[in-house]
């Protein structure tokens, strides 16, 4: 129930993101969702891709510092107020969200919220017990 995510360390200078995108294109890797956290000096690119193991390998080979870790993907209805419901649940149950980003599926009126927790297993348990559908890793690759 945990989804593989690829994180890449990028210096904050022109062309770095283009280089990542080029490596992914050359290896026919498709990005399902992405987010960038940035500071004045560096940024961290986080992505859900269709082939995480291969993405890790080819980016590493291209000289990037890459990490593969896990996030939790919660399926939510695409309507106002749902983010509050999720955050309220996390708050109530003492789950600290490290970061989050989302993906909207136009065809199904659903959205997927990707969340990074210090303790993803505990988060999975809590979301399941509260009746949420969690995205499986195979599904995330096919989004």
């Amino acid at each position, binding site marked *: 129930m945990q989804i593989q995510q690829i994180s890449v*360390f990028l210096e904050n200078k022109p062309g770095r993101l283009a280089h990542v995108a080029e490596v992914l294109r050359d290896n026919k890797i498709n990005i399902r969702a992405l987010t960038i956290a940035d500071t004045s000096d560096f940024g961290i690119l986080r992505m859900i891709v269709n082939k995480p193991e291969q993405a890790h390998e080819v980016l590493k080979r291209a000289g990037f510092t890459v990490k593969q870790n896990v996030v939790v993907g919660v399926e939510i209805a695409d309507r106002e107020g749902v983010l509050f419901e999720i955050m309220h649940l996390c708050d109530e149950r003492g789950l600290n969200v490290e970061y989050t980003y989302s993906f909207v599926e136009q065809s199904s009126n659903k959205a997927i919220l990707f969340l990074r927790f210090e303790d993803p297993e505990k988060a999975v348990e809590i979301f399941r017990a509260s009746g949420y559908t969690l995205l499986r890793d195979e599904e995330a690759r096919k989004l």
Partner: protein
Amino acid sequence: MTDELFSDEIKNLENKEREIEAKLASALLVHAKVKLVEPKGIPRSEGKAKRIVDKRQV
């Protein structure tokens, strides 16, 4: 930035910068701003160090 040092959370990387700055400051007694760079991001020395800039107009 090596794979071992890399964390995908900003706060951990910023803490790492501060930690290195503190170590440098205690060893060298001067404060230096530390900036994390990608592998091979630091240019190799290009020949001899240039320590004197001659501004004389002769």
